[in-house]
């Protein structure tokens, strides 16, 4: 069996917490067109 070099991420490490959650929810809210948010098709 050949040895495999494990993958090492070069991306910035993820963070979580209330701030990140709020930021995500804010992005979701802002990114829906107003007509859709009001329920107008």
């Amino acid at each position, binding site marked *: 069996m050949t040895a*495999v*070099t*494990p*993958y*090492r*991420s*070069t*991306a*910035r*490490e*993820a*963070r*979580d*917490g209330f*701030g*990140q*959650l709020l*930021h*995500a*929810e*804010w*992005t*979701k809210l802002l*990114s*829906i*067109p107003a007509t*859709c948010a009001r329920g107008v098709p």
Partner: protein
Amino acid sequence: MEATIDVTGLRKRFGPTLALDGMTFSVRPGQVTGFVGPNGAGKSTTMRVILGLDAADEGTALIGGRPYQTLRHPLSHLGSLLDAAALQPSRSARNHLLWLAHSQGLGSGRVDEVVAVAGLQSAIRRRAGGFSLGMRQRLGIAAALLGDPPILMMDEPFNGMDPEGIVWMRGFLRALAAEGRAVFVSSHLMSELEDAADHLVVIGHGQVIADASVRDMIAAASDDRVELRTAARSEAMTVLAHAGARMATTGPDLLIISGLSTARTVAALTESRVPFAEVSAHRAALEEAYMELTRDAVEFRAAPATPGVAP
């Protein structure tokens, strides 16, 4: 954390239906593991249990030795694509990725990186609801890559892709595995995975039917048969018969050879100066072997087509 998925003895019942019946297998880093089985075999249910979206009645599914629910930053450990249609249709593709990235403290720079990898640059400002299924698959792949995880799990990612997309997807999966990632991909068609996967887990009725490398599966299925394409069929048959081969003709320029290895077939033809276009392992046998393995596990089967009877 080790980049592995270990599924052990999973059992899951939905009312009278036993969806998983002792499912056990492992996904290792550095290779593409294909998860193949007919519709209703338990592929999606297994993946949902791995992600903690369904609770197993028995057994465990661990990511690097831990249940998915206990991972502190799950997108950094395992990226998944279960349902490409699971998005808010009026949100742009970029904003879809952006809110996911923000939930993990990742910025817009990372979104731009995964968009480029998935080949979505030209469509990224468009509403995701207007995307074709193939483009939604690419968007789902971009989302799975956001945390740059060492493990990727995708449920039927070839669905809805055009031929160019399928070729891209095969190369993409192989490239991810070559980086040392564990790549776990389901399909109900062996042909989609044949050129992409290193290892295959074949399932039916919630159980593992076969768990082996593609090479071993091809060798077992083809029974060491060799496929020869040549315009000089009769000369080739004479030469190979002298070398001890048994042959079957399956087309005007195609021979299936048994009793002689690929190397010996090439040597015999070259020595006798018989021209040929291609000599390869009889790969069609893998699809045949898969059909054979899963014949009893097919849940929904249409009646044989009858000429003259409208559907």
